[in-house]
């Protein structure tokens, strides 16, 4: 088998459109993806927050879990063997954030799960999609048919103008609330639409058959409110929104509690709940719910103008030689016009307002633990 770096880069169904629009293309998770267009990361970021941005996220994995019994509850219950979330409680037409855990309580991936009435629709990270599908097949094949939807593209339309733009092609979207999800006809194309995203803005993700993706994107880009946005601004937008990037802010070595994702684990799966435990690593994760974890993911605001980037060691003071944590995501937040970061600190030092120091080019720069999201989200609840 070829190592990934030796394999030719894959292309999404929108590759030609990116190139035609002057995108700078970079390798990402095995795909040749647009990191930015002519406008540049800063303008793309700000345009998404003020108008609307269109993102190609077709590299992500899309899967259907079809219950062999015909009852979606059976697929949802089966999935609960792999995630600490209440997937049985996802109402038809709704979506929920989830994580696949491992036996040590670490995270194999994070994902979105939607109930489409007769089956579940899953969106997983590009870098994990092969392993995720194998994981589902190994554990859920008794209860579910696992269908890879590799023939679909995925786009996101995000920002305050997203609704008015998409409404022209699908009148129904204005009645959707945050995390509503289901099949919708967009123009003359059968799509799956969810009111969600990865920017902190109101917006939509649209799963579209690959052969129709370019036509749909062209129709959306027809609006003067919409600019195509690359992965660069996608990263700065999600960072300002305080959202985790799998493989950086959370990974196989971090639990949902350490990752400050307790909110995503519903009470029914915690100790004392009707369906407590029953997912990989439940003993460790539920113990951490009861006793706390020794470290915690926090938001960080550097005091100065210098960005503090991923990998920077964190220290309790300006002089100590022993690091107490590290930055897992960091950069410049264009909407804040200031640097922002996330990282792990001992729980005892994780309170908002605590000052810690990052080592950057041999200097100790002060940062303050800050509440996330750094930029308030604008979801339509």
């Amino acid at each position, binding site marked *: 088998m070829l190592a990934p770096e030796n394999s030719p880069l894959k292309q999404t169904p929108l590759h030609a459109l990116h190139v035609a629009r002057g995108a700078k293309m970079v390798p990402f998770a095995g795909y040749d993806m647009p*990191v*930015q267009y002519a406008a*540049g*990361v*800063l*303008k793309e*970021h700000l345009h998404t927050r003020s108008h609307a941005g269109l993102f190609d996220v077709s590299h992500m994995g899309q899967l259907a879990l079809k219950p062999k019994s015909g009852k979606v509850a059976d697929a949802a219950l089966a999935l609960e063997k792999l995630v600490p979330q209440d997937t049985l409680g996802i109402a038809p037409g709704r979506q929920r954030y989830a994580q696949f855990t491992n036996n040590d309580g670490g995270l194999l991936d994070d994902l979105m799960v939607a109930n489409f009435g007769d089956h579940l629709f899953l969106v997983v990270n590009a870098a994990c999609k092969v392993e995720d599908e194998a994981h589902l097949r190994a554990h859920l094949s008794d209860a579910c048919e696992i269908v890879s939807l590799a023939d679909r593209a995925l786009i996101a339309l995000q920002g305050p103008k997203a609704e008015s733009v998409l409404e022209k092609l699908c009148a129904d979207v204005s009645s959707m609330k945050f995390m509503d999800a289901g099949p919708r006809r967009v123009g003359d194309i059968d799509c799956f639409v969810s009111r969600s995203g990865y920017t902190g803005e109101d917006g939509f993700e649209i799963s579209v058959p690959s052969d129709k993706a370019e036509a749909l994107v062209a129709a959306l880009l027809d609006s003067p409110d919409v600019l195509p946005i690359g992965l*660069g*601004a996608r*990263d*700065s937008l999600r960072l300002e929104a305080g959202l985790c990037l799998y493989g950086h802010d959370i990974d196989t070595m971090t639990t949902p509690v350490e990752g400050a994702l307790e909110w995503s684990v519903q009470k029914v799966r915690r100790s004392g709940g009707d369906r407590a435990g029953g997912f990989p690593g439940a003993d460790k994760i539920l113990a951490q719910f009861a006793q706390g974890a020794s470290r915690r993911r926090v938001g960080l605001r550097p005091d100065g*103008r*210098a*960005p503090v*980037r991923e990998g920077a060691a964190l220290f309790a003071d300006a002089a100590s030689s022993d690091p107490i944590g590290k930055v897992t995501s960091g*950069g*410049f937040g*264009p909407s804040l016009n200031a*640097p922002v970061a996330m990282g792990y600190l001992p729980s005892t030092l994780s309170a908002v307002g605590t000052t810690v120091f990052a080592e950057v*080019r041999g200097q100790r720069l002060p940062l303050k633990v800050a509440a996330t999201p750094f930029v308030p989200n604008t979801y339509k609840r």
Partner: protein
Amino acid sequence: MTTLYTSDHEWLRIEGDVATIGITDYAQSQLGDVVFVELPKVGRNLKKAEAAAVVESVKAASDVYAPITGEVIEVNEALAAEPALVNSDAGGKAWFFKLKIADKSELGGLMDEAAYAAHTA
């Protein structure tokens, strides 16, 4: 006054024994929107090829190297307040620092404008 270039996309404007140093328009276009510039301290003695300054875009940090050996005699404080000057006027107002040239023979290894144009073509 002569302007010379390095293969790392820096320019040097030579006036007497002083070199004013910045990054080229090509470099800023590759970096994208500059959001932070860290400059060397005045009085610092830089060796040729030593990391002298840092220029950061939204996405990444890049080093600016001393193209020649010399003492830092002035830095462009305007860049701290307005890093975006690097994007709008890389070859002019967005100079980074001035060096007192230690060894003029080091200039011989640098490119003139035509050579640099060929380098980036």
